[in-house]
């Protein structure tokens, strides 16, 4: 496989995953922004932290200055100049797919191409406010459709491994970022525990990773901050937890190594990160600092991505 192909497949998956995560993030933010506020700030604080989680607060401020629902949603959903917007993610994913048509199955290509064609047909300025949830659902469906097409049709060789790596590195990054931006919400504090604001915020976090329902099944308890952190960081069954992502990354990197018959440092880094998550317990993490833990994780995650691109000649 060409190094360029591996690079495009990896990023194609990342962008599809990113579009989906963005849809969730907007959905969670929108719900909270709609609620009657305790402090009454028209959702400004919520949108600020959403932009932070999406990693595009700076760009937004440079462009818009003031925070309001319409501008933030427009920026995250339709703004082609924002490289993390759903528009840009779908466009880039489709461009990569077009460049790598030979590596994709027909089903995968048609799914992406179809998404792009439908998305292009949306006229943002004519949208009524009730259209937003529908569009966000659609984005999640299309992303699931693409992954379904991939899982159902692709050969289990390097094409599959690089695609999976892109998905799970992006997903891990996303979960870690959401947690990091909201970590203060989860920190034990005497004044607010059990307040309705807490509950809303906690549910918001869980919603942004589609976990607000499954949480109940797993913990059979109302929302508790340390359990939410445990769930999203250490739980092996939760498909968007850091641990679950890393067990996928580990297994796909191992498969690549045995396919190519060569050992690479990226697998070492991934294995040590997975070890950390397998052995970790949430009390220790809170004691030594949730924020620090997450920062360290995000930088490890970036390192794995970088080492993969080096090891497999992405930019040869």
């Amino acid at each position, binding site marked *: 496989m*060409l*190094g360029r192909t591996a690079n495009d497949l990896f990023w194609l998956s990342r962008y599809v995953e990113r579009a989906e995560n963005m849809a969730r993030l907007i959905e969670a933010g929108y719900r909270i922004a709609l609620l009657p506020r305790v402090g009454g700030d028209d959702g400004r604080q919520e949108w600020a932290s959403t932009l932070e989680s999406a990693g595009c607060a700076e760009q937004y401020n440079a462009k818009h200055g003031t925070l309001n629902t319409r501008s933030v949603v427009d920026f995250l959903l339709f703004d082609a100049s924002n490289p993390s917007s759903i528009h840009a993610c779908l466009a880039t994913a489709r461009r990569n797919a*077009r*460049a790598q*048509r030979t590596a994709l199955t027909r089903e995968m290509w*048609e799914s992406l*191409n179809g998404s792009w064609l439908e998305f292009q047909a949306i006229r943002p300025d004519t949208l009524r406010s009730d259209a937003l949830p529908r569009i966000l659902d659609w984005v999640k469906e299309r992303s699931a459709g693409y992954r379904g097409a991939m899982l159902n049709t692709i050969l289990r060789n390097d094409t599959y491994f690089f695609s999976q790596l892109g998905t799970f590195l992006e997903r891990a990054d996303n979960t870690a970022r959401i947690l990091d931006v909201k970590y203060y919400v989860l920190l034990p504090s005497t004044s607010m525990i059990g307040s309705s604001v807490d509950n809303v915020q906690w549910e918001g976090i869980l919603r942004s990773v589609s976990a607000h329902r499954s949480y109940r099944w797993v913990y059979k308890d109302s929302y508790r901050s340390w359990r939410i952190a445990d769930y999203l960081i250490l739980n092996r069954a939760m498909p968007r937890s850091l641990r679950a992502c890393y067990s996928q990354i580990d297994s796909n990197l191992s498969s690549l190594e045995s396919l190519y018959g060569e050992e690479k440092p990226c697998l070492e880094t991934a294995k040590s990160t997975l070890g950390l998550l397998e052995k970790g317990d949430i009390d220790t993490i809170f004691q030594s600092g949730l924020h620090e833990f997450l920062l360290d994780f995000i930088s490890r995650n970036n390192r794995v991505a970088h080492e993969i691109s080096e090891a497999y*000649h992405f930019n040869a």
Partner: protein
Amino acid sequence: MEQIRAADLKPSFDEMNGFGQGVREPYTAVSGWLNSLRVEDLRKKSAEAELLFRRTGITFAVYGDAEAAERLIPFDMIPRIIAASEWRRLQAGIEQRVKALNAFMYDIYHRQEIIKAGRIPAELVIQNDAFVPEMIGVDPALGIYSHIIGIDIVRTGENDFYVLEDNTRTPSGVSYMLENRETMMHMFPELFAENRVAPVETYPDNLRKTLESVAPDKLDRDPVIAVLTPGLYNSAYFEHAFLADQMGVELVEGPDLVVMDGYLNMKTTQGLCRVDVLYRRIDDAFLDPLTFDANSVLGVPGLFDVYRAGNVTIVNAPGAGIADDKAIYSYIPEIIEFYMGRPPILKNVPTYNCRKPDALKYVLENIAELVVKEVHGSGGYGMLVGPTSTKEEIATFRDRVKARPENYIAQPTLALSTCPTLVEDGIAPRHLDLRPFVLIGDEVRLVPGGLTRVALRKGSLVVNSSQGGGTKDTWVLQD
């Protein structure tokens, strides 16, 4: 601007109805099927097919048209049908022609017997822009220069077929031949039950076999093949990706390739990997910045040296364009006689080389009745169809021909055959041509069929997709 005359006046042979003596035999079943359909049904199917093409991404780009980065080539659902006996004759003519073309190229890049024999003027070859002097003395595998040739054939009567043009560089359109069939079988499976249509889907397999057969000698493993594309903004990118995919080989761009230790390599996830056969879909000039256009970023520095050393096969060979040069075209009957020792089976269209004074005089006097083409033009750009042009267009073109006569050839305007086609006001005859794709390697391989292009504008004789032409599925019937 209605500008249609001659094509309306001269009666054209219709593929379905001949000169009006009733439905021709090969069309019996399809004619019945057409009569059983309502135009609205056909339109609905047509819209469905368009959606299918759009989803699949079977698109092409039109140069000079920034708006439509990706457009669809209109697909017409009424097939163009060729009888088995007609095809046999075409096939014999095509095989004879492609062998002669390759023999010609071998000769002019070696001993130049045909020039010495005085059968073709030396300056026409040597001073031709399409002649690549770097190729002199190079010995391509099996002595083949043009491995993939698309021959444009038109018809004017029951038994009158003419070769309009040979495409010996990088003929395109074969993906449409394959996708059109795929679409037809998907939309109208019942038609294929009633008609014995020869399959075309062996083409990618034949292409791979052809490419493998011209790999450099002495390989102790299966040859590695790659398709070289200028990238996804090229008008034919879909086809490049399609063919690579259908053959199961890598689709590469210039920056994916590197010359190392005298071999061509591609940069893979596991480091460098040798490439033995490069099916390139970029022009000669861009192949190697060290040998040809120094500004090219599409090609590979040092590629030509690897080629000359026999360590990679470039398909089609650099310099293969000399055989489809429009000034050489008029000598093709001579060329066939010279190398094959027999008269050509397929006729050429009579051609006036404006470089000759008496021909120029005739062309300038009769320009309104002629088709005038630039010698190096392609894709329907830079041509004049006299009878369907305005006085101003004709005047402009006459000035251009006068200014650089050697740059133009002219041909009588042929009444191209027509075929019933779905257009805005229903089903009506439209002019068409046919491009079969021939593969030349250890043997000559020709799938029964080709790309039928149809001019969708009433009376128009220009079928090129870049000029708004459409395509049809092309059926060769089996006995």
